[in-house]
Every structure is written in C-alpha cells, then in structure tokens.
C-alpha cells in the first residue's frame, strides 16, 4: 500500500486545466456530504493517474489521468466545488 499525499500535490495538475487555484476551493463529497478544502484531501499520486479520496469516508472524489495530448478528469465523487473569486 502506497503512502498517500494530499491535495496540495494535485494543485499543479489541476492548475493546468482550471483558471483558478482549485486547491483552495471547498469540495462536498458525494459519498458522505463532508465538506473540506481540496488541499486536504487524500491523494494517491503514484498510480498512472492521481486519485483523490475523501478524508472523512475514503470514497473516490477525483480521478485525473494525463497523457501527452489529453486529460481525463472524473469528478463524479464531488457534488460541488465552492470557489472564492
């Protein structure tokens, strides 16, 4: 079992796709309703992609896979993101 990191380590990969810093956004977990800052989610970064899990219930929040020309972003585990602008 690999040692997880946190959402800080995803900030660069998400910053490539979003115009705002998603790591400071507040997510709501589709599994348990937990709300927290993206920087504090549990991230497994040593798979072929990055997998972010809820720190409260461990459900998958986000999966991000990147190839040279394309990114796949699955956010089905997140009900919504609150982004301060």
């Amino acid at each position: 079992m690999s040692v997880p990191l946190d959402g800080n380590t995803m900030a660069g990969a998400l910053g490539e796709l979003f115009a705002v810093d998603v790591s400071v956004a507040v997510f709501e977990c589709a599994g348990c309703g937990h709300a927290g800052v993206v920087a504090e989610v549990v991230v497994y970064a040593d798979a072929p992609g990055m997998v972010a899990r809820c720190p409260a219930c461990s459900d998958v929040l986000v999966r991000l896979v990147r190839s040279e020309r394309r990114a796949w972003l699955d956010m089905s585990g997140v009900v919504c993101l609150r982004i301060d602008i």
Partner: protein
Amino acid sequence: MARAAVLGRLTWRVGTLVSFRDETAAARTLVFQIPDWSGHLAGQHVDVRLTAPDGYSTERSYSIASAADGDLVELTVERLPDGEVSPYLSHVLSVGDQIELRGPIGGWFVWDPEVDSPALLVGGGSGVVPLMAMVRTRARQGFATPFRLLYSVRDPASVLYGQELDRLRSDPMLEVHYAFTRQTPTSFSRPAARIDAAFVEEFGYSAALHPAVFVCGPTGFVEAIADLLVAAGHDPHRVKTERFGPSGGSTG
C-alpha cells in the same frame, strides 16, 4: 488570498540554473532564473518536468525555499537514494542548464504576512523547506510576527539552513527548536527523540493564542504532529498541512 488564487491556467516555462550551494551531503539548493516569474507566496511550490531524449518525461513537486526575489526562485532538493529526479537535480544539473517548471502553485499552505497572529511552523526533514520560505519572507519584509519553528531532523549533519537560522534567531520574536531523532549534537541536553506532546507543549504556542499552524514533512510525520496539536487544543481548521513522499510528491 482568494484574489491571489485567480492565476490563469498554469503553463510550463523554462528556468535556467544560475547558481547552487550544497546544504548537506545530500541536499543542494538550486537557484533558477525564470523569465517573467510572477513572484510567489511563502509556502508555495513548483512542479519540475524532466524529459529524456526518447520523450519519456516525469514530474515532481518541490517547495520554494526562498522569499520572493524578482525572477529568481530557489529550490532545495534532497537526494533520495532510489529517486528518479532528485539525484539528477541535486548532483548532475550544472549552472547554465535549463529545466521546465510551472508555478507558483498552491494557495493553501501559504503564510500571509498581513495576518498578525503568531505562526507555529513544524517541519520534519526537508519539510522545513517551505517553512524556511516563510521565515525568510518574514525577515525580508521586516515583519515582527512571532514565529516558532520546531524542526525535527535526523542528526546535526542533516540540518538544512542551520547557520542562517542561527543568525535569524537573534530576533527575539523568532524561536527555533530542534528535535534530533537519531543523533544529537554533543551540546544538546534532550536525548534523541521525535517531537512528542511534551515538546509541543514546551516549545509551541498555546492554542489559546490562536496561532496559524503549518506542518510539513513525510505523511506519517504530518499526521502524527497534526494529531498532537489537535489533542493540545488547536483548532483543526488552523492547522494547515502539506505531505510529501518519495512518489510523485514534493521529493523523489
């Protein structure tokens, strides 16, 4: 902070190594010049991308060690024995060489100088790097915010920035407390041990002062320290954490 978070999409840029200095036998600080660098906040990191001639490329995150200083950015890279990137950066990259970087990244694990509550910084090993950026930013900008740095490190030879921290400690509002986990200096009275509840109570700030708290290090370290701090009464929402590991994280 919310305003600073609107950055536009991140893109890769080219940085040129302009100088370096060895911090320990295994760690080197690399100074990159990055044209049109936007500056950075204390605690942010960059992603580094290396691409081999055959097209294979790999990325790592590294905390920025320096305070904002024009188009210069300093990274301290600790060589990991089985690392893919860190041995190259810390022992092969030469002055004049170029690498790809993107950043600054991350608006969460960031010290805001305009917030005047005391700051408690707890670093394990090279987890001290982003905390040093906070210490340097505070000193460079002349802030008198009370700071305490609790620095857990294996042995005296592994201490990063030791001489600079000794100089900065002449500021009575900045305290630095070491916990040596394997071997202590001869002058040191506390036996080799990890940071524990008693250490946090003796050298940290009381939760009643509502300090901003930053904890950075390997995942196990960060979780142990965060648990200690919350048990000591610190508000979990004020304890900001950043974990790194040998795979895909801040080192490797």
